[in-house]
């Protein structure tokens, strides 16, 4: 794909499809350790986002991501709305006026997204949250910096997979799962899983 505004919009549409496909899986992951709304909330937000993108695609990748951020913040609710909203907003701010995404810019955006999520949610690595998917996603992306945008995203997605997998063995320290303490061990964090799913969708769209 081109990494223009239209390409970013296409990646978000792909993400919406992936979220819809995995809605029940995310609800089930969240039902076990949280309150069973993660898939429902994300699905509501991405559906609204696609509807907005149907009427207009803003001119730059940054503007598309900003639109995605505001839609998620105003439609998702829960913890995921502000966290994903902040991630997209910070990524958008990194892109400036660029008409096209390139690997260095993409990696900067990923880093900004991670920092934004940490600032908003106060989570660090090992707390069993989406941060545990974003940290290995970023370092995998950095490792693939010499490749294309698609290759960087594919590496990030695989990193996120490993990170999401690692949350299974962790005792959650943030969000609703933290109330379970040791009883949450053995279950994957739904936010880490959705982060991996989104990165896979972006990688797929970029191929």
């Amino acid at each position, binding site marked *: 794909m081109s990494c223009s505004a239209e390409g970013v919009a296409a990646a978000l549409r792909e993400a919406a499809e992936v979220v819809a496909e995995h809605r029940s899986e995310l*609800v089930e992951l969240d039902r*076990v350790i949280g*309150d*069973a*709304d993660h898939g*429902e909330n994300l699905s509501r937000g991405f559906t609204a986002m696609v509807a907005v993108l149907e009427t207009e695609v803003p001119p730059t990748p940054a503007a598309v991501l900003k639109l995605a951020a505001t839609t998620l913040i105003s439609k998702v609710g*829960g913890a995921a709305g502000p966290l994903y909203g902040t991630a997209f907003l910070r990524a958008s701010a990194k892109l400036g006026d660029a008409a096209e995404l390139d690997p260095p810019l993409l990696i900067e955006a990923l880093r900004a997204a991670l920092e934004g999520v940490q600032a908003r*949610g106060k989570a660090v690595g090992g707390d069993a949250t989406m941060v545990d998917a974003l940290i290995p996603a970023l370092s995998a992306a950095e490792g693939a910096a010499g490749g294309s945008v698609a290759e960087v995203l594919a590496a990030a997605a695989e990193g996120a997979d490993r990170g999401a997998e690692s949350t299974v063995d962790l005792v959650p*320290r943030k969000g609703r799962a933290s*109330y379970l303490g040791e009883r949450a061990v053995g279950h994957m964090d739904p936010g880490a899983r959705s982060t991996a799913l989104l990165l896979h969708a972006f990688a797929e769209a970029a191929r």
Partner: protein
Amino acid sequence: MKKIINDPATVVAESLRGLAVAHADLLRVRDDPALVVRADAPVPGKVAVISGGGSGHEPLHGGFVGPGMLDAAVPGAVFTSPTPDAVQAALAETTGPAGALLIVKNYTGDVLNFETAAELAAVDDLDVRSVVIDDDVAVKDSTFTAGRRGVGGTVLLEKLTGAAAARGDTLDAVEALARKVIGQVRSIGVALTAPTVPHVGQPSFDLGPDEIEFGIGIHGEPGRERIPAEPADALLARMVEAVASDLPFAAGDRVLLFTNSMGATPQLELYLAHGIAERLLAERGIVVERRLVGPYITSLEMQGISLTLLKLDDELTQLWDAPVRTPALRWGI
């Protein structure tokens, strides 16, 4: 799942429509973002008291909108906090130069969304403060969790701050009162069954026929401990011990005891539990000066109860007794 609904996606909106019809004299309801607002808002010169959170806890919060309590309630989707723009809309409809107090339950989503709304309000030059209530003694308050949850104490906090705002207190005073109440209210909850969220269609957790969850929150999230079901005397002793030993509440303390149904526990069992709790508190020398018994902060159709203790002084007792006129709480007017 058997529920009296049409479509999980429209449950909240349709319920709010019913609330509006049933209580048109007290409140009005707005759609998208969903909002419950006092019929006569904004009330000139008065600090606005606003709360909100996921739906499914009725009558919290929409049932507490009216004179003497909330100026607006911001309902989210079921068990999901509302979004910042909904809180902004509530501020726009209720808040003047006297400012507004946001009452936020300590759940990650609520805190993040209300925090964002408060930041946006500052941009609009509104004087908005927020307080986070965290009265649930079931959760260890440490850096290793999201902190204690806001549960039953929220109802009492909304009543008391609403009364303070109604008598003309400044925002500084209402905020200070809220912090005082948060400092001296504690709760514990127990679940006998799990709730079923409409869009999920199956119970939020799996509980054996002879098991109960001790230390349950209000969103159907599991508690901290699963124990075998036991007779009411033993269960209430466990609950009273958990709450009373936390502050701690000591002999001679005057308190408000709030015995709450989580949705499906009938009055028969609720009053039975309340009676035992009063007896156990009396044995400790704790003086129950005011009571509230009923389903006020619920978790859909979950069976279970929560106990909330608030340490009273003359001012809090007076504010508790002050007139209130809302769909779910009403006296003195």
